[in-house]
């Protein structure tokens, strides 16, 4: 575990290496400008590509140190033994198989943490899903489908089919309905007796009874409260005996930055929020209730 002073030292080292690289690129560019302005542009572009592609070991060391200090340490303190992998997350296949989200052609996931909270196994990861395309004129555009946290909890009961609840402004949620979806996987929209809930959320289920069984008036209130306290657009899915909670907040919260001093404090605060959110999810949805 690193002290705050040691982390700051590592940040300074990584930052100075970063500036040295930038300096070298600029120096090459200035030298080349004497020969030809074209070569300067070529040299600068080459330098930028080299800077981006060649890993900066100091930067990685600093990131790992911050994450070890802020993420692993805090999660272990909160939940005891946890499994942490900063460079890995949920596989694309795993997320795709849930059928909860549209999948683009870009996928990444990192900051995987799994453990047990109040007897409930959980795992979480930051997920990024986007679709990139370019037109005939070479203009490229990227549409981000999802960027935020994805949490998976063991659910104490198994429903007979899939159940999905999401906010109406949660764009790119996959509804798995219509004739192009396999009949066994097809969901249909459910309208509950609470009109205000119907206005704010979309409920998709394979079986009406499951939806009404889980979404009692009390549970609807809880979802509404949980959603109001979330920092992004919310989606919930019950698939088999797993509860999936996805919060699309356009953030990768546990990433440190070289340019911010005392950034570790911010990362720690984000991790505290994550821990609190895991606890709150288990509490709100009564996942720890003993049968």
């Amino acid at each position, binding site marked *: 575990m690193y002290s705050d002073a040691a982390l700051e030292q590592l940040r300074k080292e990584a930052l100075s290496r970063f500036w040295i690289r930038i300096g070298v690129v600029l120096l090459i560019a200035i030298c080349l400008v004497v020969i030809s302005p074209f070569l300067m542009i070529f040299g600068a572009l080459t330098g930028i590509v080299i800077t981006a592609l060649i890993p900066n070991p100091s930067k990685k060391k600093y990131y790992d140190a911050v994450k070890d200090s802020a993420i692993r340490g805090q999660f272990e303190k909160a939940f005891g033994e946890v499994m942490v992998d900063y460079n890995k997350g949920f596989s694309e296949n795993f997320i795709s198989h849930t059928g909860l989200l549209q999948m683009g052609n870009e996928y990444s996931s990192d900051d995987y943490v799994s453990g047990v909270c109040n007897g409930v196994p959980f795992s979480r990861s930051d997920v990024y899903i986007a679709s990139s395309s370019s037109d005939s004129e070479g203009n490229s555009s990227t549409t981000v489908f999802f960027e935020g946290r994805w949490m998976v909890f063991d659910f*104490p*009961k198994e429903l007979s089919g899939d159940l999905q609840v999401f906010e109406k402004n949660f764009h790119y949620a996959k509804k798995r309905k219509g004739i192009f979806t396999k009949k066994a996987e097809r969901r249909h929209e459910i*309208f*509950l*007796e609470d009109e205000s809930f119907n206005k704010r959320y979309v409920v998709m289920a394979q079986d*009406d*009874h499951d939806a*009404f*069984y*889980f979404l*009692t*008036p*009390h*549970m609807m209130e809880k979802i509404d409260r949980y959603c109001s306290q979330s920092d992004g657009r919310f989606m919930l899915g019950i698939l088999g005996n797993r509860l999936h909670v996805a919060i699309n907040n356009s953030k990768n919260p546990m990433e440190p930055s070289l340019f911010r001093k005392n950034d570790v404090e911010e990362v720690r605060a984000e991790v505290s929020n994550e821990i609190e959110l895991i606890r709150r999810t288990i509490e709100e949805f*009564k*996942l720890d*209730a003993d*049968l």
Partner: protein
Amino acid sequence: MNPVVVIICVVLLFLVGWIIVTINSIRRMQVKISEAEADIDVALNKRFDVLTKMLDVAKSYLGEERDIILKSIQMRAAMSLEQKGATGAAMENAQKQLLAVGESYPQLGSTNQFKQLQIAIMDTEEHLQAARRVYNSNISRYNQMCVSFPNSLVAAIIGASRREFFKIDDSKRQDVDMRF
């Protein structure tokens, strides 16, 4: 061909198509209502089974009262919605009585079998509530279809009329909470 005839044919085709779609929607809703009613029967039967088991476990503490309770919660064939409601209420009372017996006799209440049956009865209660809500939700959509114009015209032609809701005690509706 005369354009007026073409227009009349198109309008008639559209009308016939709309009538068929509406009739199918009403029939589909009627099937869903029947399914939801069958779901209530399943939940009531399940609750009856669990209560019977509980009565057997508590029979030495209940004496003759056991038979009286058992008779009151008996399911009969082809019960009306009202009768199902009454049976559900009787089961509710029986459940309260049994839980009170469990509290009065700690040696009974602390047995594993009694505890498991208590959990099972809560589970069946949750399923029954869900079945009732599914039924009422379907009834609500069906009634809206039957009374809203112009669907009401088609509903009247095929003899589809408003149906009664399964009454849920308001205080009960407030108390329902998922217990896992």
